[in-house]
Every structure is written in structure tokens, then in C-alpha cells.
């Protein structure tokens, strides 16, 4: 026991060492920000997350115009009042955007800590449910490493996260809101979950689909093997030997921390109530800040409207920009609907199949929207890969993981090269960069499909083990 505790202490301390190291690394990069010129990379700053556009919006607001006058700023007015002053304030002898960078570093660290806490919750739930299913031997491998630590370190040390943070895109804050909502749902705090969800939806619209996993999280509890297994096991136990002492103990344990087999409506109702409260609150704040100029409708038009109509055709990592630059005008609306529907179509099948694993469901949703959204950036990918770390034990048998790793590395190296060839040197053309975007989309698809199938296989394995076990 003592040794175990010491080990835990040492892992904990090493975790914090790594966290501080990552912060220091970021600060070093912040100081060399000028030379890196990350904030103008198309992979880092999209029209939605670019800090330059935010500064322009703040300037417009300061000169008593609507921040949405012109088509520069498309973010939230709340973010504008939060980050706007920081873009203007300068400290003598320090980099221009130091305060902003510090805020983003802080957001990254907080998200990492929240991911860790979520991971720990998930892990305890996982080990409990395995114990219930008497599959303790599976746990042995997972004892040594905590998936929360892994996930948060993956999030912190992921080059994509670092680039998004140092490149001054606002995605760290959006990610923080999403993680906050997941954390709130995992710790069964409906108000926190609702707050995170409302803010995330307000900032970037796509997290709206997370309402499904959040409701499952609150209604069914944390990720667990399929509920059918528990029912079977309980029935099996009850039929075999109801009077034995060990089974009594089991019963007690079951009663103490059994995963709720039925959907509990109370936290969900709380969540919905809080969500409406927070959204009214956020909308009221927004309308206060845009009251003099264009009003809420203008805000919706130039934030959500801008996201949904893909007006800006500047190149990014996604698949939509080149498509809409080339597609014939009379098909434009049709394809807009088709592409956005592709995100929505998958909600129901995934929700049916993965309803016992809401966290994983949230991961898949985030992954899909980060792949198909109109202005994706590395910040979204960073969040996906960070959440991916939460499920390393379940997804241990995933196929093509090495291929995927190589693919991500290859694409992230090739994409700047192709961009440079096309935009700066003029020796390549748009197809070069588009090809990397396509390859990237393919890797994302493979990751989504393989991780889903690995998770389903894992459930199958558990069922097989629990069925074959007497």
C-alpha cells in the first residue's frame, strides 16, 4: 500500500513538473513570437479565431462603430470585451501581445487540469464497472498509468495545442469552454455543464451538438460497458446462489455504486434549466454590448451566419474553402445544406450505438465537427487529440494507429510547405494545398472510424469475457 502511495505521489509530482515545463516552453515561444510569425498561418488563425481580426473589431468598437461593420470580426462580442483591451495594452519592452498570450497559456493549463480531473473520474468509473463485471484482470494494465494524466499531458504537449496557443488564436478559450462543460457533466454539476455548453456554443456554434452526450452523461452517468451486461450479470448472480456471503457483499457494492441502469431525469432537467438560464444571461450580455450598433440580429448574422454560409474562401485545413471557391453559384446553397447535414446526420446513429459511453460520444462529435466545420484550425484538432488520450485503455486495440500518427506528422509538415509554394513562391498552385487538406480530412476520417470501431470492439470483448466467465 505504502509503495503504491509513493508511486502515486511521484507520478503526481512528475505530472506537475511536465505541466510547468510546458508552460515554460510556451513562454519561451511567446517571446520569440515575432520570428515564428505563427499568428498569420492559415492553419492557426481562421477568420473566426484570428487575433488580428479581433483587434480590428475592437478598434472599430472603440471608434464607435459596430464591431461587425465590415467583414473583419466574426467572433463573440463577449470575447471582444474580454480580449479586446488586452490586444491594445502593451508593456514596454515586452512582446506586443504578451497579455493575450498569457491568458491563452492560462486557458491551456486550466483545460489540461480539467481534462486530468475528467480522466480520473472516467478511470474510477471504468475500474468500478469492470469490478462489477468481475473482469479485474483487465485492470492490471491500467493501474500503472492514469489516463487523465496521459490525456492532459497529450493536450499540453501536443504541438498543435502549443501552436494554437502561441499563435494567438482564440481556440484555447473555445476548447476551455467545451472541456468545462464535459467536466461539469462528469462531476454531475448541471450548472457548470450548462455554462460550458452555452459559452462554447456561443463562441463557435458547433459544440451545440454536444447537448446529446451531456444529457447522456447526466442521465446515465459516466462511460461504462453496455448496460445489458450489468443486467445479465445481476440476473445471473441472482439465479445462481442468492444466499452466499460473497454475493451479499457484491450486492452491497452494486447498490452502492451501480451505474444507473435507468435514465435519471432530474439532473437532465436541472441541466436544461441552467442552460436556458445561462443562454438568456449570455444573450443579455451580448445585447448589452452590441445594443448601440447593430443589435443581436447583426451579431447572429455575422457570427453564425458567417459560419454557416462559408463566406470567407481563404485557405484553411478544411475541405470546404476550395470547394466553395470552385463550385457553381447555383449549387452553392444545395451543397451548403448537404455539408452541414453531414454533421447532423451522424448524431442519431452515434447516439444510439454509443449511448453508454457519453464521453466517447462527445469525443466523436467534436472530432466530426472539427473535420467538417467551415473554418477548422489546429486548435480543434488539439482538443480532439487531447480527448482521445482519455480513452487510451479502451482504444488500445485500435488499428492503423501508427499509420495515422505518420499521416498527421506528414500532413502537418507538408501543409506549410505547400502553402508556401502556392502563396509565397508562386511555383505551386491551389491544388497543392488542397491536396494536403484532403489528405488531412482522410486521416481524420480514418481516426474517427477506427476509434469508433475500436470502442465497439472493446465493448464486444467485455461482453464476451463476461458471458464466458461463469
Amino acid at each position, binding site marked *: 500500500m505504502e509503495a503504491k502511495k509513493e508511486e502515486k505521489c511521484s507520478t503526481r509530482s512528475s505530472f506537475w513538473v511536465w505541466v510547468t515545463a510546458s508552460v515554460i516552453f510556451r513562454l519561451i515561444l511567446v517571446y520569440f513570437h515575432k520570428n515564428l510569425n505563427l499568428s498569420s498561418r492559415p492553419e492557426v488563425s481562421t477568420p473566426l479565431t484570428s487575433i488580428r481580426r479581433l483587434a*480590428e473589431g475592437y478598434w472599430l468598437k472603440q471608434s464607435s462603430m459596430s464591431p461587425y461593420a*465590415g*467583414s*473583419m470580426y466574426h467572433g463573440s462580442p463577449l470575447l471582444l470585451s474580454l480580449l479586446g483591451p488586452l490586444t491594445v495594452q502593451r508593456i514596454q519592452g515586452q512582446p506586443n501581445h504578451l497579455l493575450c498570450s498569457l491568458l491563452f497559456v492560462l486557458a491551456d493549463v486550466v483545460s489540461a487540469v480539467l481534462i486530468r480531473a475528467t480522466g480520473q473520474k472516467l478511470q474510477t468509473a471504468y475500474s468500478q464497472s469492470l469490478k462489477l463485471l468481475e473482469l479485474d484482470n483487465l485492470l492490471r494494465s491500467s493501474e500503472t498509468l492514469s489516463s487523465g494524466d496521459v490525456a492532459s499531458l497529450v493536450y499540453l504537449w501536443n504541438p498543435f495545442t502549443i501552436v494554437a496557443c502561441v499563435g494567438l488564436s482564440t481556440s484555447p478559450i473555445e476548447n476551455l469552454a467545451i472541456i468545462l462543460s464535459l467536466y461539469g457533466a462528469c462531476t454531475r454539476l448541471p450548472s457548470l455543464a450548462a455554462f460550458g455548453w452555452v459559452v462554447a456554443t456561443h463562441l463557435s456554434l458547433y459544440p451545440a451538438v454536444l447537448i446529446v452526450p451531456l444529457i447522456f452523461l447526466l442521465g446515465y452517468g459516466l462511460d461504462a460497458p453496455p448496460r445489458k451486461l450489468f443486467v445479465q450479470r445481476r440476473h445471473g448472480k441472482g439465479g445462481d446462489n442468492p444466499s452466499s456471503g460473497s454475493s451479499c457483499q457484491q450486492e452491497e457494492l452494486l447498490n452502492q455504486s451501480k451505474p444507473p441502469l435507468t435514465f435519471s431525469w432530474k439532473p437532465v432537467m436541472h441541466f436544461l434549466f441552467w442552460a436556458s438560464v445561462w443562454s438568456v444571461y449570455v444573450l443579455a450580455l451580448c445585447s448589452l454590448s452590441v445594443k448601440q450598433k447593430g443589435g443581436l440580429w447583426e451579431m447572429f448574422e455575422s457570427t453564425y451566419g458567417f459560419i454557416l454560409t462559408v*463566406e470567407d474562401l481563404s485557405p484553411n485545413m478544411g475541405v470546404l474553402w476550395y470547394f466553395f471557391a470552385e463550385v457553381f*453559384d447555383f449549387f452553392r446553397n444545395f451543397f451548403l445544406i448537404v455539408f452541414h447535414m453531414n454533421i447532423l446526420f451522424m448524431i442519431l446513429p452515434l447516439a444510439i450505438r454509443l449511448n453508454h459511453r457519453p464521453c466517447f460520444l462527445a469525443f466523436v462529435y467534436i472530432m466530426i465537427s472539427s473535420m467538417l466545420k467551415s473554418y477548422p484550425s489546429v486548435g480543434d484538432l488539439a482538443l480532439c487529440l487531447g480527448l482521445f488520450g482519455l480513452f487510451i485503455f479502451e482504444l488500445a486495440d485500435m488499428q492503423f494507429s501508427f499509420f495515422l500518427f505518420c499521416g498527421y506528422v506528414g500532413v502537418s509538415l507538408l501543409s506549410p510547405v505547400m502553402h508556401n509554394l502556392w502563396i509565397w513562391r*508562386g511555383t505551386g*498552385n491551389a491544388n497543392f494545398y488542397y491536396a494536403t487538406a484532403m489528405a488531412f480530412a*482522410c486521416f481524420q476520417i480514418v481516426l474517427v472510424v477506427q476509434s469508433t470501431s475500436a470502442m465497439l470492439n472493446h465493448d464486444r470483448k467485455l461482453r464476451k469475457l463476461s458471458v464466458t466467465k461463469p
Partner: protein
Amino acid sequence: MTFSHSKSTVGVTQSMASRVLRLLIVCQLLYSTIAFGSVLDIDKEEEEFSEELLLKPLPDRKVLAHFHFQSTAPPSTSFGRHHHLFPKPISQLVKKFRVKEMELSFTQGRWRYEQWGGFDPISSNNAKPPGVELWAVFDVPRSQVDASWKNLTHALSGLFCASINFLESSTTYSAPEWAFRPDLGNLRYGTLPREAVCTENLTPWLKLLPCRDKAGLSALMDRPSIYRGFYHSQRLHLTLTGSSSEEVDSGIVLEQTLTVVLQPSSWRTGKSYVDKAHSQPSWSISSIFGRKVGGKCVLAKSSNVYLQFEKGLVGELKNLQKENANPETNKLASKVFLSNLSFDLSVNPDKVFEEVDNFHSKSTSILYEFSVEKYNDSHPLDLGLTWKIPVFWSCQQAPLHASRFLMGSGNERGAIAIYLRSTELSEGLKKSDIVDQSCELRVNVFQVVPWYIKVYYHTLQVFVNQQSRAVADIIEKIHVSPSKDKTSPGVMELILKLPCGLESAAINLEFDKGFLHIDEYPPDANQGFDIPAAVISYPDFHVSMHFSEDGSLDKSPMFSKFEEKSLVLSYTEILLVPLTTPDFSMPYNVITITCTVFALYFGSLLNVLQKRVGEEERFLKSNAGRKTGKLSQLLSKFSTKLRGKPREPQPSTAVSSSFVSFKLILKILLVAGIAICWQYYFG
């Protein structure tokens, strides 16, 4: 006549005499109906036309020729009036679109402010940016201004054979508030920097003149020699005059100018200079235009040719005279100033005027007038200027010389910089003019940027004498209307407040280059896109040119125009911005590849979700077998009874196949049912 009210009786009798003379000529040449018409209208104010040509040697061995035609239609009460001289299309335009003031210019070449001057009425009124520039003020409610503008562009496009109709799109025109022209409300301003200007634009412009190019000064416009020049700007400016009451149609003043800068071909003078390369070339009207003035346009009230020697040149000539000649001739020369040592005029001028200078500078410009009335086809006017000694001078310049350039490389982003440099000639003027006031030089900047140049206005930087200064210290007033994608261009209006001892000032704006849809690129997409010229003006400086109050010159519409105080204004260069292009040849490839990726995503994910493996499959099968066995047996029984054959035991494979077929039938029935329902409810 408009001026006869205010003039002395002498002037009236003079004008009457000239009118009678002109009437006689008109009677001789034209049909009597027109003559009767003008006889009937003789007591009223009547339409007038006048033609003038100003020639001016420029310091860089070129000659400026400025044609000025003015037609006026007085205010009248009759609706649908008949015009004698005034072009009908213009009056219809004014009536229909309720234009209060309008200016349209077609320009080729760039006015060189440093060599050709930037501080005289010609450069501030007639130097225009390349391509087409149109601005108009409307007398309609604010909400209808845009509609009027659109109609006006179409009408002008048809009238002048130019693609002015492209100014219809809201991305090309803007509504400047104060920096372009002060005190105007319903102003719209648009430019087409890439419009090619040629004879097809000149011909309709000439058609508005009563004599076209058949007689008078416009007959000089030999197309090859005009378009061979370094600068060519044809301009049409109309203003409303007179009453603004409902019943009376207000009068219209239509001012048509053609400003050309030509290089005189080397005209034999018989004299050779030591430094031939830098000396002023001698020229004559026939050498620069290839034609001579064969009399006036008979319909014109006045027809004059002027030769102007500007301040710098006159000062230089006086200096030369002081050096060379004895003081007695110098005294004489002050009035006569003809055929002296330095130059020769081939024709003796009718009158000589001297500019009335307000600034007490040491020399003033001199104007020679040549009346065309004396000349006819057999005895044409061929004004020639022969230089005897080399003369060097420089033009008077605007307080600052403005130029604009792009910074940065690559097709992602860049910066626009406007660089203002102090000019030598304005130093003295600045000292004399502003010493008593607080020492500030105010500069208006008006810049329109198309929407695909996404300017970050917060990156505005100001440099004075190459040192960065706080924006708030230098910029007195700023108005920005940022560009909206595919809707409106970005407009920036600034008033800079510069210290007057400055050497240079620069303002700098960063921008991102936009990416357009494949259809939005012009056919020659790789040539780049033009940013229209910025307008730099100096609100504290006005130019006007007063020549001696001799009375007789006041009749000249051109010089009455020059006497009006006009803002010192200059245009910067047009910028050419290359934008990245997508691959124009592959819309189909892009559509198919992208859709394939989407199909891959959708198909494979759905496949994973509904796939069942191994024992699940078997379990389902056994379940299905148990359940459907009875049904299939019943079915087979039924079928054998129908066929009348003895029932034979089916193999297990047949069970599944019949089950499949049963499922198929069910599906078909379901679809048919849905279709029927659909038909029933929505058909």
C-alpha cells in the same frame, strides 16, 4: 446673357454688336429657322457656347494643351424645351436623374505633379487618375441616391461608349463624407482604374459640341497626335445654376475639357544650341497637332487661343533679361515682353495679361491671347514658339508630394503606404502663409479600397520624418467605413495634422488579400487587381489665378473658372495588387474529390456503426431462423397448395432465401404504401 446684368453699358453694347455679327454669320451658314428662333429669343438669356485653348510650355520639354468648351443653358420655365446649342442628352440626363453636379473623366497616363506642376487650377481640376472617374451629387432623397446613381451609370455608359455601367455594383462606388469634396451630401464616387480610353470615348464627347470636330478649335484634335501624348484626360463637368424653385428648370453649365500633354516633335528652327538635349524645343500648333486652326466655330460666342508662361518661367526669363540686356529695354519689356531675346512668337498676340498676385512673389505668370475670329481656312492660325536660348525652370508645386506604394511580398498579405514628401517650392509659401497661424499643415486623405483587399485599420501607423508617431497626435479626424465582403468597398477619410517643418510623412496600413470565387476573377486574373488612386488634398490651400482686371478677359469662361478658388488636390498612383488564383480548370475535379471524401466519411462510419461480427451474426441468424421458420413453412405450404404439387421438404438455404424474398416484398409494399400516402396527401 448671364453676365450682361452686372456689366456696364459699354459691355452690353459690345456684346450686342458681337451678337448681331454672329447672327449674320449664322444666317449665312445655317437654315433660317434656327436664326428666327434666336431672333425671337434675343431679349431673353440664351444658350451660349465658347471654346478656348490654353497652351503652356512645361519644364520637361513638353507642351500642355488644355481645350475648354463651355455650353450653358439658362434657367427656363418651359418643359421639354428645345435646345439650340446645348446638347440635349445632357439636359435629359440632368432632368431625369436630378443630378446637381457631376464630373466624368477619362484619362490615360499619369499627371506628373513634380514636373508639370501641382499648385495651379489645371493640375487641381484637370489632373485625374487613370481610367474613368465619376462622381455625382444628386438632388433626391437619401434613400434614392443609390438607385439614381445606378441609372446614371447606365445612361453614361451608353452615352460615352465606355464600361461605366460597372460602377453600378455597390462594390465599386462609395459615398465619401468630407474628404473628397467638402460640403456635399448626396455624393457618390466611383472609379474604374483599368478602363482603356480611346477614340470611341472621344467621339461621343465631341458630339456634344455644336461644331463637333468639324470647325473651330476642336478641329485641332487629330486623333493620332492626341493619343500619342504622355497624358490625356477628357473631362465633362456639369453644374446646375440659377433658381431651385419647382416651376423653373435650373440652368446647366456644361464644361468639357480635354487636357493633353504632348511632346513637340523637333521643329526646325535653324538655330543649334550647345546643349540640345536639355533645351526647350520650339514648337507650333501645326507641329504638335498636325493641323492648324482654321477659324472659329461659328456657333461659339468666343473662340480664343491662349499661351501661358507660368511664374517660374517668367522669373527665369526676367533674370536672363537682366543679365543680358541693358536696363532701358528691361523697363520696356515689363509691358510688352514680346519677341525679346529669349523667345519668338510667330503670331503677334492680341492682348497680354499679367497675373494679379496676392502673395507678392517676385514674378507673375503672363498670358498671351490670340483671338481666332481673325483667321479662316485660307489664313489659318499657326501659333509657334521659338526659343532662342535654353531656359530652365520648375513648376509650382503642391505643399507635399504624395506617392503611394505597396509593401510586402507574397500573396497573403501586404501593406499600403502613402508617402508625403515636402517640396522645395512650397517652402517659401509655407513660411509666408502660415507663420502667423499656428504652424500646422493639414492634409486630407481619401482612399477607397476594394473589398478583396481586407484592410486592418487598427494597424494604421504614422511616421513623421521617419519616426513613428502616435496616431492620435497626427490624425485630427478619421472616418472609416470598413469593407463588407462582396457588398461594399472600404473607405478611409483622414485629416492629418502635420507639423509644417516636416521633411516627410508616411501612413501605413496593413491588409490581407482576399480569396475570390472562381467567377469573380476577371479573364486576365493573373494580371492583378487595381486599387483606385487615393485623393490627397490640402484644405488650407486654395488656388486661383487672377489675371489683370481688364474686363475683356472676364468674358472667358475658362479664366472665370480659374478665378474660382479651388482646393489643391492631387491623386496618387493606382496600385496593382496580384491576388492568388485558384485552379480555374478544375471545378469538376474539386467537386468530385470533395464529395468522395464526404462519402468516405459517411459510408465508413455508418458501416462501422451497423456492423455486427462473429457470434452476434450467428445469434441473430438463429433467432431469425426460429422466428421466421413457421412463417416460411406456412408460405411454402400455401404455394404448394396453389401449384397443386406435393409439398417437398425445403433445404435450410431455401428458408433463408424465401425469408429474404418475403422481406423484399414487405419493403416494396412499405414503399408503395408511402408513395400512395404521399400521392393522396400531397399530389
